[in-house]
Structure formats: C-alpha cells, structure tokens
C-alpha cells in the first residue's frame, strides 16, 4: 500500500483519524462541563423567576450593584459559561456586587405573561428587592440582547430606579434587512403561532437560529471541534484538548438549553418591535403607558459586536440619539454576538472596558 500512497499522505490521513480518536476518547470519559460555576445564592423568587446574587470576592464593593438582565430565550449562565472566561467573575474581581435574573422555563399559566409582567412585574420587583437589600435608591442595569431591550424599556419607565444603563448587543431599532430574523419576523403570522402553541417551544426558535447558516452550524462546527484536537501526547496538549472539548460542550449546552417563550410576551415583542418597530418611534405601550426613550437620562454605555449576525449594529446604534442622557457612549468590538460574552477578546477587552466605565459611576452619591 505504501507504494501506492506516499508516506506524507498517509501521515495526513493518520493525523485526522487520530484527532477523531482522541476527541472520542475525551468524550467517552464523560468530561465534566459544568456551567455557571461562580458561587451564588438565590435571594428572591417569583413564579419561575429567580434573582441570583453572586458571592462578592473582594473585601469592599462599589455601593451600586449591577443587575444583569438576559434575553428570555437565553439561560442566565452565558456570562458565566467557563470559569476562566466569566464576565460575572471579572465584575466580581473588580469589586462589583452582581445580581442576575434567571427567567426559568415558562410553562402552564406563563403563556399569558405579557411584556408588562416582565418589565413592571419581575424586573421591577427584583430591582426593588436589591434596593431594599442595599438601602439604595438606584441600581445599575446591564442588559444582554433582548434583555438589553427590556432594560431600555425599564429605564424609560422607571428612570428613578436606574443609576447606569449598560446594553450589550441589544436591539432597539428593528427596521433592518441585514439579519434574516428581521425579514422572517415581518412575514410570520404570529397570532396563529401563539394561539396554537401558547408557550412557544424553545426548539421552534432554535430552528430559526440554525437556519441562518445551516451548513456551518449543523456540520462544519462539529468537524471543527475534532479538527482543533492536538495529537501530541504531552500533558499540556492533553489538558488543552480536554479543556477545549469541555468549552465546546458548554457552548453546545447553552445554545440548545433554550427555554420556551411565554406566548403573549412573544406576540407583543414580534408585533411591536419586529413588525411595527414601535420602540424607537416612542410608540410602544407597556401596561397602558407609552415608552418614551427620551425619559432615559441616566449614564449609558451601548456595547456592540462588529460581526453580530443576530443583532446587526444598525439595530443598536440608534439608541444613543434616542435617549436624553448627557453621559452616553457606544463602543463596537471586533467580535460576534456570542463572542462578546465568551471569546478571549471579551475577557481582554470587553469586560475591562465595561468595568472601567462603571467604576467612576458606581459609588454612592
């Protein structure tokens, strides 16, 4: 056989088989890929919602705590996915007191929850709990993706409770054709979907996300996982391979651990935001009140990702002009929608930037 195929070619094929075998070897050991490992406690619960308080790790903390609000479609541990790449840990290290909302998995009567229930109910109650706990008037809100949109809405309705607003890859102007999701959302009959499902299954949304780039997300990603394996047998390589595989599995878990959506809230979000684009026009109503973005007068940091395929920058950029804050800033990092939370650039650049921006704005007035 060696006469037919040159040795150099056999080495290449052999190397690829080895990568696959070593990858499988790691998987067969059922590696532990725990997520959200930063020590925390649940300090407040309401229905399925939990308010999580991360244990401070510095002797002294800034007096204004940070509340992280996630998208309803995401689990809360995206900012704490890996112990070595945790935005939460970074904030704790920098002396912030950090809280986060875990939305849980909606079911049963949750199908009737509206955006009003989320904003003026859960978020408001969580903020009030933190305010009472710390004997302060205001907290810092840090919203992620749709959670950012919710933070913006909350800040417009209750500016008196917000000290700073940080939005990460958050849409506010939905009138774009750069992302397929926006085009699809305009063409779906959301009433029929909500009326039938009630609680929109997480998989329904996952299919939509996967359709954005099916060949890379359903095939190439998994080939790439094995391709990254280093075939050397020294301890460092083995450890790196195991860690890479664990990180891959953590991301897989987060992506497919998708909570269902409360039907009524989903209906309003699709109709008012994606189909009618009411938020940026100051025409969206929550609990009978119009949301006027000009009511937002708090310090604002709008963080975007240059290669965001889910929330293109043009969806986030109009926020700065829409608010009346004087102290406002936007920054775009050369990364993607998910990379901004978990990429190595995130740890090196994004987290420190946010922390440094927050520090002078987080002591008690």
């Amino acid at each position, binding site marked *: 056989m060696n006469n037919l195929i040159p040795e150099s070619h056999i080495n290449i094929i052999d190397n690829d088989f080895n990568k696959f075998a070593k990858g499988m070897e790691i998987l067969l050991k059922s590696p532990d890929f725990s997520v959200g490992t930063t020590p925390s406690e649940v300090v407040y619960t309401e229905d399925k919602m939990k308010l999580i308080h991360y244990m401070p790790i510095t002797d002294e903390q800034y007096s204004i705590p940070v509340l992280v609000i996630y998208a309803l479609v995401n689990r809360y541990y995206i900012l704490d996915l890996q112990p070595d790449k945790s935005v939460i840990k970074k904030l704790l290290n920098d002396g912030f007191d950090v809280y986060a909302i875990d939305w849980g998995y909606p079911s049963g009567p949750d199908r009737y929850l509206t955006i009003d229930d989320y904003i003026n109910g859960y978020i408001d109650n969580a903020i009030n709990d933190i305010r009472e706990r710390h004997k302060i008037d205001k907290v810092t809100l840090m919203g992620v993706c749709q959670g950012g949109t919710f933070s913006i809405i909350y800040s417009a309705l209750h500016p008196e409770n917000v000290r700073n607003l940080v939005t990460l890859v958050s849409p506010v102007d939905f009138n774009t054709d750069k992302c397929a999701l926006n085009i699809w959302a305009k063409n779906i009959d959301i009433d029929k979907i909500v*009326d039938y499902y009630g609680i929109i299954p997480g998989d329904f949304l996952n299919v939509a996300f996967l359709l954005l780039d099916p060949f890379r997300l359903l095939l190439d990603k998994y080939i790439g996982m094995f391709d990254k394996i280093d075939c050397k047998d020294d301890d460092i390589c083995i450890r790196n391979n195991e860690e890479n595989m664990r990180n891959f599995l953590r991301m897989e878990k987060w992506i497919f651990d998708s909570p269902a959506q409360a039907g009524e809230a989903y209906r309003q979000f699709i109709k008012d935001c994606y189909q009618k684009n009411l938020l940026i026009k100051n025409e969206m109503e929550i609990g009978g009140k119009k949301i006027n973005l000009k009511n937002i007068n708090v310090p604002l940091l709008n963080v975007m990702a240059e290669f965001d395929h889910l929330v293109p920058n043009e969806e986030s950029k109009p926020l700065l002009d829409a608010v009346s804050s004087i102290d406002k800033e936007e920054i775009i990092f050369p990364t993607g929608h998910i990379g901004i939370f978990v990429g190595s650039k995130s740890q090196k650049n994004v987290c420190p930037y946010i922390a440094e921006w927050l520090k002078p704005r987080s002591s008690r007035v």
Partner: protein
Amino acid sequence: MDKNSEEKLKLEKDQLKVSLDMTKEFFDLWTKSYQSTFGKLAQVPAFGPIREKQEKIMKSMPIYTDLYTAWIESNINFQSVFTEATKRTYEKTIEQWPKLSDIKDGKGCVDPEKFKDLYNTWLEAYSDTFKEFMKSEHFASDMGKLTSVFMDFQKYNKEIIEENYLKPNNLPTKTEIDEINKELYDIKKIVKELTKKIQILSKKEEIRESTEKSEELGKSELSEKTTSEEETLNE
C-alpha cells in the same frame, strides 16, 4: 473554465430549471383542477344528524391541500437553491483546479489536503448560497405561508382530537387546560397586586405608628421637661 465545460454547465442548469418549472407548472395545474372540482364539493353544506361533525371533517380538505401546496412550493424552492449551490461549487472547483492533474502530486496520488480544500470550497458555496436565499423576501414569504398553513393544520388536528376522542372519553382537553391556566394567571395577578397594596398600607401604618409614638414621646418629654423646669424655677 474551458468553453466545453461552460456550455455543459449552462445546459445542465437550463435542464434543471426546466425540470423545476415543469414540476411547479404541474402542481399549479393540479391545485387549480382540485379547487374547481373536489375542492368545491368539500365546501357543500352538510345535513343530517351528524352534519356538525361531517362539516368539520370536510373542512380538513382545503387545510390539507393548502399545507400540501405550501410544502411543495417550499420544496421546489429548496431544490432550486441546492441546484444553484451545487453549480457554484462546481464552478469554484473548476476555477481552482482546472485540470484533474492539479489535485495530484508528482506520483499521481490525490493530495489529502486537497480534499480539505474541496470541502471548504463546497462549504463556502453552499453556506453563501443558502444564506443569500434565507435572507430573501421570497424565502421569508414562503416560510411565513408554510408556517401559517401548518398552524391551521395543527389547530384543526387539535380540534378534531378534542371533539372526537378526548371529550367522548371524558378526558381533559388542551382548550380546558388553557382556560384554567388563564384563570390561574388572572388570580395570580390579582393576588400580586393586592399583596403589593397591603405591603404599601402596612408600611404607611408603620410610619404612622412610629410618628405617633415619637410625637407622644415628644409630648411626654416636653411635659416632663416643663415640670422639671417649673420645679427648678420654684426652687
């Protein structure tokens, strides 16, 4: 790419287009024929003791045909995108390696690294073509239509199962569970509002009580002070 390959590629593309167009044409014709014949029959009002059930069952026909039509149209679209993606892969491959000898080494063996390059070419062509398609209004409108008729179909199925199986067997239906869920949601909302109001009232009461106490304390302190001052003065 040489002239022959170009012509061959064009011919293949034209053949596929004709084939897809014919499929669509045939299906359009079938749909029109159905709607003007059996479709009309399905709309005829039913009568007799089982008219209600029969009418509901007859309603299924247009729902099934709508779903089938939307599904076939989506399939045709996806097929044409696959065709376009394959064509692009072919064009790119020919462009990269115009001759078969380009992928072989000096000994006449195919270099394994070239397979990886080929995979990347395939991936890029397929990924870009599908992304383009997914972002088109055409796909969005098709997907919207398919989702909509699929929801009609699911809703109809649910109704038929509830009417003809669950209710006669005295089993709870999703509709009934939804009604209970709605009531539960409303009750929860009222309880939360009342709890908030009670909390506010309790706080107000606490403040009132503490103000009263401090006022009383102030008064008694004042009267004690006045008495002691009077005593001092008398002394």
